[in-house]
């Protein structure tokens, strides 16, 4: 009963985590998972307005619902190419 949580690029540096898990039952949506990590890593606040969310490798919104087995990723604005 868990949700996989990924942080990429600068967000992985801030949290010190590239990948972790949270209990599925405790979080209803993407925003609630972000709030949980924001509490531990206040420097995430500066990225709140620009960051992108993905659920199961598809772009998502803060209010996107999450459930057991999902993969939630927090992404800075992309800069590939």
């Amino acid at each position, binding site marked *: 009963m868990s949700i996989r949580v990924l942080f990429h*690029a*600068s967000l992985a540096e801030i949290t010190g985590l590239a990948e972790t898990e949270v209990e599925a039952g405790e979080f209803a949506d993407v925003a609630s998972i972000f709030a949980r990590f924001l509490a531990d890593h206040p420097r995430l606040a500066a990225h709140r307005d620009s960051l992108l969310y*993905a659920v199961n490798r*598809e*772009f998502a919104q803060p209010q996107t619902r999450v459930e057991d087995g999902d993969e939630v990723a927090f992404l*800075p604005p992309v800069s590939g190419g």
Partner: protein
Amino acid sequence: MHRLVREAIDVQALRKAMADPADGAVVVFEGVVRDHARGKTVTRLEYHAYESMALKKLGELCDEARARFAIRDIAIEHRLGMLRPGECSVAIVVASAHRAAAFDAVRFAIDTLKQIVPIWKREFYEDGAVWIEGGN
């Protein structure tokens, strides 16, 4: 064909794999690591990807290019890991019967890649390194 690779991109091999006698035009875009950015000397550039999602988005991007433009095929390779100035970070090859569609498709592909494919670069300077956020 779309791939993320950790070795040097072989643009010529990518182009040869696309050869077809029905093609009248081949357009190739290569992104190259510049030795200067933001007024500083760039010593290295690191590319990181959310690989599973990046491959999904590259595949969707290729499908959309084939649907929107009158092209025969498109191939994209993006390199990950540490690169030096002058090295190729991304190569896009489009083959088509006529050139206008090939130009449009390559431009669409690189513009879209820079907007929606989860890949990030970190620029290394003589005095530090910075993750770049947002493209151009």
